[in-house]
Every structure is written in C-alpha cells, then in structure tokens.
C-alpha cells in the first residue's frame, strides 16, 4: 500500500494544477486519473484562453477572473499560448444595442476592447463576412489544453508530485467520519491499488458527482455537452467571436495547424457523453457561416464533444444560463473530514481554481506555504542554442512545434534524436518525429496510442491516423514499449477512436480521407479480418 498526504482525483487541468500547486508548496500528493492525462473536458473544448469578453455583460466577476488569469498564463505558460488576439464581430444578425453595454462591461472588467475599422478588419481577416458592422480587438488567445496540462504535470513531477493514469477510483475509505485512503483499479490490467492518505481532493470535473456518490453524498454537477468541429487548416489568424449574448457556434479558434469552431450546449445524461450527433455539426455550420461565409468549403477533420462540469446549486439555471464560475466544497460541512471537492469553472481559470482549493487544503493540513503558481513559469523555455541544434534533426516547421509540445523534455528529445541515425517523422501531418514519440511512449502515463496522441498530436492532422498509426505502433513495438494491448488491438483501438470523430461528418473531403484509411487498413493490411485469426 502506498501512502501520501493528499490524493487528487482527476487528471484534467484542475487536478493537475492542484498537483503542481501542492507539490510546489511541499505537500506530498498522488493524482489518480481514470483515463489519460487531459482526456476529458480539458482537451475537449475550443482551446480559447478567454479575454473575458464573452462573459463581460452576463457575469462581470467571471470576466475579471478571466482577464487576470489570461495575463498570468501568457507569462507562465507561453509555450502553450498563441498570442493571437481576438475579434468580437457584430454581424448583420446581431443586436446593435448590445454593442455599447458590452464595451462598457469590458471596461469595468479591465478588458481592453479596441474598435477596429471594418475595412481594416477585413484586410486582416479576409475570410470574414464582408457585411459585418463593427469589430473590436480583445486580448483573447488560443491555448493548447493538452499541452498546458502536460506542462503542469511535468512541473509537478519535478516538485515530487506523482500521478497514475488509467486508474479509476473505486472506493474512498473512511474511518470515524474521516477519510483514510483511496482504492483504485488499473483499467488496463485490472489490478487494484490502495493509497492511504490524509486528504482526498475531488477534481474529477464532470465525474465529480460520481466521486461524491462514493462517499454517499450528493452534489449538483450537471454535465453539459458541447460539440466542436476541427477544420483542417487555419482560415483566420485571430480568434473570432460574435458580438452578442454568448451562444452556440459563435467562436472560431485558430489553433496550431487547425481551426476549431464551437460550441453547442446540451444537457448530457452522463459525463462521458462524447458522441457527436450530426445535427450538432450541421447546426454549428449554419451558425458559423454567419461569420465565415465560405465555411462549408473548408474541410472538417473531425467533430468531437466534451462535457462541461457545470455547477448547478439547487434552483439555479442550467445549460447556457448556468454560471461558469467555480465552487469549492468542504465536505466536513456534511460530516466527512478530509475530503474537498471543486466543481464548475473553466479552463482559463484552472490555475486560480487550483490556488483557491490548495489554500483550503493547506489550511486544513496546517501547512503554511504561499502559492507561487502565478509567478513561476510552468516550464523552462527552450534555449536558442537548443533550437538551433534541433534544426539538424527536425524539419523546419517541426522545431518550434516539438519545442513547445515537449517543454522541459525538449533537450532530452533533441539529444535522443541526435543519437539516432535518423529521426523520421512518424506523423507527417502534425510533424511528430520518432524521437518524440518514443520519448512520450516511454512515460508511464502513456498506456496506449491514444495517450501518445494526446501528448504529441500524433494522428490529429490531415490523415487522421492513416499513415502514422502503423508507423508508430511499428516503431514502438520495435523498441519494446510495454503496452498492455497487442499492437494490432492498440492500432484498432486508435483507429476506432478516430472513426468516432469522423463518422458524424462523413461527407466531402474527409469522407475521401476515411475511404483511404479503410483501403489501407482493411483492404491492404486486413487488420479487420486478422482480428479473428490472430491471438491478441
């Protein structure tokens, strides 16, 4: 049995943020995640680092938090943030009376909203509808959710934090009204694990209610499904918002090599309601066309959905109307010592949420340590020398991508690449090289190809896994990466996961891509027929 001071449940932005914060304050902690790191809402959203403009009118407090945290993250997490700025655009369909109060509300929240001449805006963003009426520039940014969470995890590890992925919490052990420990099951091997601890932090997002149920309590966390579309290329340089009361399908976020259009808001009956109905996609396209008239001519890579863990206290509004604020709950108020939960919130304020929760945890543990997460950069940036060295082993566009993705591990991977005879790109669409993939796969947190994907963007580009999955499973089998699944099963699982995002948008260019994928894996490699013929 392991022992630690705090067990954190949930490996999303909040949980990992807490792990880092506690570790920096010298509190021993182990984090348990049922899937891979950032496999829930932290990666299933549009990747917008809010300026707060979106919340300015409705929830000025939340808007203030956003702009403050936005500025902090640009400082401490610059490898994860593209300082792309954002436009709020008043279209023909938006109420012009909303403009003035919105500008005022931005001012109150401390958000710089500077009007841009429409002509100039169209010159900067030619994909926008030419009939738009007003444009404001705000400090929106895009942020890579996977990456930010992973960089936090790397930093947490450096401070002694531990994390176990693919471990589902099955019980929270208590004695005399006090938490004693946690029981978890390894979902890959079925093995059980016990960890004794002084405190449990429930940061399970949409699954938080389920965790609370383990101790016989109830809480108002309502999963709310948001569907998003990823397009094959960047068609704007900036984040584009509609200047109106925030609604569905009104944000475009250019993001690395792609653009994401979000989001819908539907009540979900379970936290893993990740299936995407075609109707959601069509709805998003209809709305998106108001801002970007050529939208339907762009290729959809895939659609995906996440569930927002909306915190809905009894009697409050649900869905779009629910607060995006967060709530820290000390379960000692309900008679259980040693357990705290955090509900609601949003990615942009993950750090603040972690800070507030860790303040409570430290207070309960009697630890006196200041939070330093707002000051200390999450990772150390790659040096110019290292970037220059990397240019020998990575293709030109691959260098900054790898440097930003890998963070502190970049020098290690560059050395690894230097030691290899060659460092081929296993994923050509997202420019992920063999050295990077081998490094990431060797991390105990990587249990399958999907985990490797989340951390490297393997298989997330144009071909959606058609070429890279064979190459990757080949290279990883070659270097004896200890995955629980057989290579073919791992590959099938990976392709199946990609398929989930393709099939609701099975038309146009991406349908062609998918046809190629089936031709390669079924017609040429027979991985479907072999399933019943090989022992896996």
């Amino acid at each position, binding site marked *: 049995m392991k022992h630690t001071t705090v067990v954190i449940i949930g490996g999303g932005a909040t949980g990992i943020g807490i792990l880092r914060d506690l570790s920096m304050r010298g509190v021993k902690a182990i984090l348990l995640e049922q899937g891979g790191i950032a496999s829930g809402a932290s990666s299933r959203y549009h990747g917008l680092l809010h300026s707060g403009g979106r919340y300015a009118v409705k929830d000025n407090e939340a808007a203030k938090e956003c702009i403050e945290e936005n500025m902090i993250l640009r400082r401490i997490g610059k490898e994860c943030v593209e300082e792309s700025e954002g436009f709020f655009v008043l279209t023909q369909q938006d109420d012009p009376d909303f403009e003035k109060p919105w500008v005022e509300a931005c001012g109150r929240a401390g958000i710089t909203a500077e009007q841009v001449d429409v002509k100039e805006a169209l010159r900067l963003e030619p994909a926008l509808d030419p009939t738009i009426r007003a444009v404001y520039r705000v400090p929106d940014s895009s942020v890579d959710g996977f990456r930010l969470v992973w960089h936090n995890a790397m930093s947490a590890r450096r401070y002694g934090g531990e994390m176990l992925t693919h471990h589902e919490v099955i019980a929270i052990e208590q004695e005399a009204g006090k938490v004693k420990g946690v029981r978890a099951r390894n979902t890959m091997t079925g093995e059980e694990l016990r960890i004794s601890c002084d405190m449990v932090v429930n940061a399970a997002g949409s699954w938080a209610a389920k965790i609370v149920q383990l101790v016989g309590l109830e809480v108002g966390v309502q999963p709310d499904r948001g569907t998003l579309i990823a397009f094959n290329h960047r068609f704007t340089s900036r984040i584009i918002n509609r200047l109106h009361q925030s609604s569905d399908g009104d944000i475009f976020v250019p993001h690395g090599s792609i653009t994401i259009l979000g989001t819908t808001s539907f009540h979900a009956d379970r936290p893993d309601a990740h299936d995407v*109905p*075609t109707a959601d*996609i*069509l709805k998003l396209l209809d709305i998106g066309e108001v801002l970007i008239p050529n939208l339907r001519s762009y290729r959809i890579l895939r659609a995906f959905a996440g569930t927002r863990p909306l915190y809905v206290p009894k009697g409050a509004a649900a869905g779009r109307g629910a607060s995006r604020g967060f709530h820290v709950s000390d379960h000692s108020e309900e008679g259980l010592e040693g357990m705290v939960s955090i509900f609601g919130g949003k990615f942009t304020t993950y750090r603040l949420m972690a800070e507030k929760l860790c303040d409570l945890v430290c207070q309960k543990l009697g630890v006196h340590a200041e939070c330093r997460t707002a000051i200390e950069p999450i990772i150390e940036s790659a040096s110019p020398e290292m970037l220059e060295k990397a240019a020998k082993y*990575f*293709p030109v566009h691959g260098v900054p991508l790898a440097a930003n993705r890998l963070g502190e591990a970049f020098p290690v991977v560059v050395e690894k690449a230097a030691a290899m*005879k*060659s460092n*081929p*790109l*296993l994923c050509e669409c997202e420019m992920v090289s*063999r050295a990077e993939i081998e490094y990431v796969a060797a991390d105990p947190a990587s249990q399958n190809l999907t985990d490797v994907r989340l951390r490297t963007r393997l298989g997330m580009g144009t071909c959606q896994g058609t*070429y890279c999955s*064979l*190459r990757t*499973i*080949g*290279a990883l*089998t*070659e*270097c*004896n990466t200890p995955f629980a699944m*057989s*290579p*073919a099963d791992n*590959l*099938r699982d990976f*392709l*199946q996961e990609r*398929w*989930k995002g393709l*099939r*609701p*948008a*099975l*038309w*146009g260019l991406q*349908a*062609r891509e*998918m*046809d*190629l994928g*089936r*031709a*390669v*894996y*079924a*017609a*040429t*490699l*027979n*991985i*479907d*027929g*072999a399933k019943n*013929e*090989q*022992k*896996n």
Partner: protein
Amino acid sequence: MNRKTDIVVVGSGIAGMTAALTAAQSGKKVTLLTHGVGSLAISSGSIDVLGYVNGKAVADPFAAMADLPENHPYRLVGEADVRASLDWLKELCGKAGMAMQAGEGNQQLVTVMGTLKPSWLTPLSFHAEAIEDVLRVAVVSVEDMKDVHPGLIIDQLQRYPALAKKEFVKAILPNPIQQAHRNVTPLDIARFVERPEGLQWLKDSLAPYAKLYPVLLLPPILGMKHSQKIWEQLCSALNVKIVEMVSIPPGVAGLRLREVMKKALNEAGVYLVENTEVVRSEVEQGACKALTTVATGGENRWEADSFIIATGGLLGGGIGTAPGKAWETIFGLPLDMPENTEEWSSPSIFGDSLFARMGVKVNEALKPVDAEGSVILNNVRFAGRILGGYDFATEKSGHGVALATGWHAGTLAGKE
C-alpha cells in the same frame, strides 16, 4: 476544342485502364480522360478477388460468389467474365515480364503489419506459401524505413496459431541512400535496386541472412520494371526463397502494374489526356453525346459513340457527398442514401456500413438503371468502385471488381 473518338473512358485506375485497353484491342479508337492517376499507383498491386463474405474468410472466391447479394458486381458480370478478366491480365503481365499467378485457392500474403491478407492473382515475389515449409524465417527491413518494422511483423505473425512456432529473426539492412528529413520508403529502395549497384547492394546485404534462413520476408523493394528478374536472380544466387510483403502507399507493386498497363495503353494507341476533369455531360434521349472537361483553363468537348465511366468511389472522386446526400459526379446520378448521415456508417470502423457499398446501380451490361431496372443512359457503362453493391475494403475485392468490370465494360463496348 471538340474531338471525336469511338469510345471515351474516364479514369485511369485499374478499371479505366482495363476498359480502355480491352476496347482498343477490339479495334476501337479510344480516348482516356484522366484527372489524376488512379489508386493503382498507391495500391499493393495484387489482385484480390474475394477474401471475406459477411465477415467470414473464403477459401475459394469463385465458390463463394454465389453467397454474394444479387447486385454485387461479380454477380452482374458473371463468374466466367471474372475469370476471363484475370486470364487477360495474366497474359498482359506475363508478356511484360511480370508474371502474375494465382494459387489453389486464396493465397495468404504477408503484410507489413504482420497480418495475412487473402489475395488471388499476385506477382511471383509475393507468393508466401514457402513459409509453411520452413522453421526459420528472417524478416528484413531497411534502416529508417518507417513503414516497415520487423519487430511488429514478427510479433503479429506469431499470433497466428500456424506460425506461432516459427523461428523469426529481425534483419535490418543499412540504408543505402542518403536522405534529408525525407522518408525512406520501399519505393525509394525498389528504385535503387532497379539499378545494378542497388541490386548488388541488396545481394550483398542479404547474403549473411540467406545462409541461415531459407525464407526471407522483404518489403516490396525488388526493383520496379525488372522486379521478376531481380527476384529470380536473388533467389537463385542466394539459394533462398524471397517473399515480398504487402505495404502501404506509396505502392510499389501497384506502380509496377500501373507501368505495365500504361505501356500497353501507349502501344495500343489509346489517346491519353491527362489532368483533365469532366465537368459536364450532354445527354440527349437517354444517350450521352459528349463530355466536357476543364483543365488549367478553357474547356474541351469529347464526343464518342459510347462512354465508360471508371472514376472511382469516394476516394477517386467518382462519388460526391454532402450532408445526407451522395451522387455520381459526372452525370449527377443520385445515389440512394439516408438523409441522416449517422445512418450511413456503422459505429465500428470496419463494420457493415451503407456508405461502403454505395454506388451506381447498373444492369448486367453495366449500364445505369433506375429503381425499376430500366436503363437510364444507353451508351454509358460504369466500372470499378463507382459501382454500388460491394465493400472492397472488408471483402478484399477491390482490384478484382475493378478488373472484372473494366474488362466486361471494355469488351462489351468494343463489340458494339
């Protein structure tokens, strides 16, 4: 510009090239319009006829054809023509020095995934039955060849009960060609091996393994135009059986076959027009008069007595799709598909999906018909993946259907 020939064929995949060749061999003047080179250039180059019916492996494709649905292209063309088309290709390839042979029943080819794939007519170098008789097999790749990993191949091959006891060994040859961030693909090496110094390199690099292992599994790297000769030379010089494995695009063996067919087209006097997309058709009284193409600029009109459309499916561009809609792209023939896209496909990627079988509905002459079975265009035939009624990927019937229907369409049109 306006041009007139006897037959216009659209598409230069295996179906289009076969149709053009067979029609030209019947003495017709044939124009072949192409927009891109067709999927043969990226395929594994073996003619799979039928590997699975309803998910069950079949030993003899011809025996299994009776179990196929009535609208399956094989049922429309008939077993005799399927066989005739295979014989025709066999002869064509044989004459070109790239013998293709069938086995007793379906052959099991080895893939670079370490799986076995049922196929029918294949170049000699792909025949893999030699593995059955030996204990020791070397699995060969080339350094930096990212598509071919012997470790994976061995791991997966040993998962077949019949191969579990074999003694496999990895053999990684040094990379003979310089490279930047470029891939080293089997195609690069095959082109190198086509040259004398490349062949020498391969012979020298394989020699130590050939002494210890009676069978060597190789990526498809045994040259291009002279693959058969190279295979024979190496096998006899090293006293070993060499088996090429089926690999992913870029397709070496597919390209070899394409080169053979393309040369035959030139010799048969087929007029090839490249880089041209058909944008319009003129139909009068149930017959097509002409097709209009565009290229980098301007339009050209191509008149003919009859037309063969082999534009491929989703991938080839013969089938267009939009949310809830699918159509044939030249004549705009609507394909009958549900309005809700979610119903098009199975939740499982290799499950039984409607979209995989969508395509133009035709009669036994491969002419398009309406729901009642009446011919819509009486001088137009369809061949290859544009046809509905089969799923090439799960059946392993892609090249087989393309060849049989291309041959059938070309032969029928040639006789008119």
